[in-house]
C-alpha cells in the first residue's frame, strides 16, 4: 500500500462519525453525504498540511466543519422568521406549564440529578438518544443552536449571519437547551423528584 492508500483507508474509517456529524447539522442526508465526500477529498488533497497522525480525526473534522459552514452560508441567508415565531409560541405554552404562578418549578417538572456525566457519555446507547433529541428540536431553533454549539459561532456572529436580534438569539438558545434537556430527561434519565 502506498502512503496515500493508507491515509485514504484511515480516513474512510471516520466516515460514519463524519456523516453523523454532518446529518445533525444539515438535516439532509444527500447533502450530508456530499459534504463528507468533499471533506474527505479535501483531506487527501491537503495531506501535506497535516502534521501528526494522532490528531488525524480532529483535523478531518475541522475540514468538515468548514465545508458545513460554507454550505449553510450558501443556503438562504436569513432564517424564516415566521417559522421561528411559531416555534416560540409553541415553546412558551409548554414552558409556562412547568412553573407555578410564582415562577418556581412545579413538583413534577423539577429537574433531576443526572448523576455522573462521564458514566453516561461512556454508554453507547446514550448517543442514539442524544442524536434523536437533537433531531427532535424544531428546525429554526436547531439551526441557531447548531451554529452556536457545533460550529462555535459567537452569538453576535449568529445574529449577523441570520439577521436576527441578539436578544432573540439568547431566547432561541435557551429554548434549544431547555428542549434538549427535557427530551433527555424524558427519554434517558427519567424524571427528577427533588424538593426545592
Amino acid at each position, binding site marked *: 500500500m502506498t502512503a496515500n492508500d493508507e491515509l485514504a483507508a484511515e480516513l474512510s474509517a471516520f466516515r460514519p*462519525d463524519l456523516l*453523523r*456529524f454532518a446529518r*445533525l447539522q444539515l438535516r439532509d442526508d444527500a447533502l450530508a453525504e456530499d459534504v463528507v465526500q468533499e471533506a474527505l477529498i479535501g483531506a487527501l488533497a491537503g495531506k501535506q498540511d497535516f502534521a501528526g497522525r494522532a*490528531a488525524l*480525526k*480532529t483535523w478531518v*473534522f475541522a475540514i468538515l466543519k468548514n465545508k458545513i459552514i460554507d454550505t449553510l452560508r450558501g443556503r438562504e441567508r436569513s432564517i424564516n422568521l415566521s417559522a421561528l415565531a411559531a416555534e416560540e409560541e409553541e415553546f412558551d405554552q409548554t*414552558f409556562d406549564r*412547568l*412553573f407555578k404562578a*410564582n*415562577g*418556581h*418549578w412545579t413538583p413534577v417538572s*423539577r*429537574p*433531576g*440529578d*443526572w448523576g455522573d*456525566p462521564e458514566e*453516561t*457519555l*461512556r454508554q*453507547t446507547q446514550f*448517543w442514539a438518544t*442524544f442524536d434523536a433529541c437533537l433531531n427532535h428540536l424544531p428546525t429554526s431553533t436547531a439551526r441557531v443552536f447548531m451554529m*452556536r*454549539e*457545533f460550529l462555535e459561532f459567537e*452569538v453576535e456572529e449568529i445574529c449577523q449571519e441570520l439577521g436576527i436580534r441578539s436578544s432573540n438569539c*439568547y431566547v432561541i*438558545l*435557551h429554548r434549544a*437547551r*431547555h428542549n*434538549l*434537556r427535557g427530551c*433527555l*430527561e424524558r427519554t434517558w434519565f427519567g424524571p*427528577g423528584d*427533588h*424538593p*426545592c
Partner: protein
Amino acid sequence: MLSCKQTTRLLSAAQDRPLGFGERLSLKLHLLMCKGCTNYSHQMDFLRTAIRHVKNPQEDRRA
C-alpha cells in the same frame, strides 16, 4: 429574588456570554437554595460536554 423560570434563562445565557456582577450574585443566591435549578445548571454543562464529545470523537467513546 430570581424565580426558577428566570434562572433557567440566565443559566442558558451563561453558556453564551459572561454574566454581569449582579447576575452572578443573584444566580448564586438562587442556586444555594434551589436543588432543581442546581440540577438544571449541571444539565446545561452536561449538554456542552456531550456536544464536545460529538465534535471531538477522538477520545473514542465507542472503544
